[in-house]
């Protein structure tokens, strides 16, 4: 299946008109002005804002009151929905002839109508290198990165190239305490072992899934990692643990950045 199948007809026409070299060439960018200028400093040209979106219905999953467990249906939903959104965003970047997508934002917007309906959105700015080079990943797809323009510039200066966004997700249900445990803990400074273990397990699952994705891309490392715990709309004991970062590979053997000038700002 070609990647561009899922795009509406007028999207394909719009992106074709925006390609560099066309007489109708034009760029749009979701980058702030800082990032817009720094991306150009790094030797890349913004081509266009690319976006993919999926309205997803998250299936119901029974939770056992007293058990720590990963809610695999919900985990699978978060993965699948994000993948659908990102695939569509990457298809738009492909049509623009981009080398990569920077400043990718992943957002989830739960809808008011319908139960458990959410829009998963992936937005970024497609860029192309001014000098021809090999920027695509080991599957021939444009690189993706959630790094800001400033971080992207610094990374390239330091001799690394982004490969792709890697993420790991785990929706976990933390067991409620038994009544006698809760009563016994009143007024005491104690550790609650099952909560601790649950949070350890959940974070480990999310981070190891992220590492597996980076290994598949044959990356040397992951930068800019965020480890988030997002309750969404599921209440206190069900949380999504989400690890996201950018996998990188070295561009050259040396990794040296110019020594920065130290300044004391007089404004906030």
């Amino acid at each position, binding site marked *: 299946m070609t990647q561009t199948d899922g795009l509406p007809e007028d999207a394909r026409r719009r992106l074709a008109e925006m390609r560099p070299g066309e007489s109708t060439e034009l760029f749009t*960018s979701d980058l702030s002005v800082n990032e817009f200028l720094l991306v150009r400093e790094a030797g890349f040209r913004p081509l266009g804002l690319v976006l993919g979106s999926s309205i997803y219905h998250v299936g119901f999953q029974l939770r056992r009151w007293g058990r720590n467990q990963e809610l695999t*249906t919900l985990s699978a*939903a978060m993965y699948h929905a994000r993948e659908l959104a990102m695939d569509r965003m990457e298809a738009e970047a492909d049509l623009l002839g981009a080398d990569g997508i920077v400043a990718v934002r992943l957002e989830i917007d739960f809808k008011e*109508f319908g139960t458990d309906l959410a829009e998963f959105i992936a937005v970024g700015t497609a860029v192309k290198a001014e000098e021809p080079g090999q920027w695509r990943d080991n599957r021939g797809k444009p690189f993706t990165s959630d790094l800001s323009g400033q971080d992207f510039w610094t990374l390239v200066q330091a001799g690394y190239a982004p490969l792709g966004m890697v993420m790991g997700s785990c929706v976990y249900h933390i067991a409620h305490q038994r009544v006698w445990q809760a009563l016994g803990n009143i007024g005491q400074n104690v550790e609650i072992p099952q909560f601790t273990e649950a949070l350890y397990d959940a974070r480990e699952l999310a981070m190891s899934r992220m590492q597996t994705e980076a290994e598949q891309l044959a990356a040397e490392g992951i930068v800019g990692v965020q480890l988030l715990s997002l309750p969404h709309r599921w209440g206190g004991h069900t949380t999504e643990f989400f690890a996201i970062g950018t996998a990188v590979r070295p561009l050259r053997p040396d990794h040296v950045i110019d020594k920065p000038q130290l300044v*004391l700002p007089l404004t906030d």
Partner: protein
Amino acid sequence: MAGWDGRGLPPIAADRIARAKRSNLHTSLLSVPAAVAVESAGLDPVGEAMGCVVQQRLPPLVLTPLTFNVDYRPYVRAWREGWDKALSRLREEAGLLGADGVVGIRLTRRPMDDLVEEVVALGTAVRDRSGRHRGRPFATTLPGADVAKLRSGGWTPIDVIAAVAMGGFYRDYSFRQQTSVLAGNGEVDSLTTMVNQARSAVRDDFAQQLRGIHAHGGIVSSMSVETMRIEDSGAGVRADTFGTAIVRTAPAGPAGALTIMPLKGRK
């Protein structure tokens, strides 16, 4: 007050602008860092500029409920006219003040009751110290510091772009099936198609508006979708995208970045 016919500026606004023009006092809505940044880029604040319009807005018209034919055009037209009128009044005030542009424009839309809304555009008018006048004042939602950075990078803003697109669909059996509690994980086809089409159409509108004013590019400052129920059996989505059209003023090429490390810790 005797009725105003809606053309030009209301008498009280015209008075305020005339007073501001006579006075040596230059007010602005810029923060201190933004004011300093804007002055370093060769722009001097002249005064506030505002455009405001109160209008009636009809919801999308359902033409034939059974086959769900909806005419969105009057709704979209009213939506666009709100922004256009507010921005043109803002530009008129800036022009009367002798300004070359308006920066840091905030656009707001507030419903006053079910069918009436107030649309406001508010920003700081600035004059180009070098004396170069473009004719029509430029307008941008970008804050003062960003305008300064753009200008020193060889670009200049020309206009605010407010793009809009609508989509709608009928909540048919397959939709209800895919969204029922027992449906399990899955993408909702009809809603996804509608939202993707609306989000794509709004970016099309954005690009067409950029081409219409011969811009070289556009910086998007915000994108959103609003979903609404239409009658019992339908739903609509309105996608909005705001940004600034920019043109290159100096030849493209790296300006050279100075890397600095601030000694002040982050809060």
